[in-house]
């Protein structure tokens, strides 16, 4: 499960460098997310631009990644491909995340908010 991180101002961008988050890698994904998010208090932006396929296990792992960040911390999502976006919309989980087109618009949003 290849993932990379980049700090951008107040945010930590976690980029998934895989084409799939499915049952085969969901647990590893969630563990890696914990590693990346537990040592910082920054806002977390999850970049899914390279992800072409997300199944229900992958969706559960993304939800779980926000949950394990603790109370009140948000996980924002960017770069959803049509198939990935469809899973979030069909399960109505698009309502529990803030979803942006790309990293730039996500980062700008916090600039406007603060």
């Amino acid at each position, binding site marked *: 499960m290849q993932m990379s991180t980049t700090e951008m101002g107040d945010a930590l961008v976690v980029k998934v460098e895989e084409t*799939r988050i*499915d049952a085969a890698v969901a647990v590893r994904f969630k563990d890696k997310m914990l590693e990346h998010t537990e040592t910082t208090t920054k806002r977390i932006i999850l970049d899914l631009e390279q992800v072409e396929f997300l199944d*229900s296990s992958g969706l*559960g792992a993304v*939800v779980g990644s926000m*949950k394990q960040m603790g109370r009140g911390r948000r996980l924002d999502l960017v770069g959803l491909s049509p*198939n990935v976006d469809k899973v979030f919309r069909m399960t109505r989980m698009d309502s*529990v995340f803030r979803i942006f087109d790309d990293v730039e618009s996500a980062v700008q949003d916090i600039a406007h908010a603060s």
Partner: protein
Amino acid sequence: MPHDAVLNHVPATPPATAAGGVLSRTAFRATFDNVRLAVSEALSALDPLNLSDEELGSVQMILAEALNNVAEHAYPTNNPGQVKLVLRHGRAGVLIEIRDHGQPMPNGRPPLGRHPTETQPDDRLPEGGFGWFLIRQLARDLIYDRENGENFLIFRIAVGERPA
């Protein structure tokens, strides 16, 4: 019900889901990694149907959910058994048949696939329970049966319908 009893009652007109040509037939050990490969091969077998990316996405999703369920629930993780997958092209779309010799479905019935926030209203952030919800959204004419220790899951995906 003994299945032999109904064998001779062939309906005069085939139902809309009547099986057409077999597009692919595979058998493999039910591991998550093998499911990935099998789904990828199944999508290649659909090439002649010229499905849109969205349709292929639906097929990919439902196959992954149904087959991963076999890997996760039907067999013990440390001893995965065989699963068989058959794709057919029928008048009303792509027909999927999945067979395994693992545990039966809970209560002998396929889950209703209600949204996890309905079954657990206190959990606003459910991490599971989406698999059957997605299957039920995308599958048509879903049938589950078990005979001689074998699970049969059969359903249709309304893509690539053939003109009558």
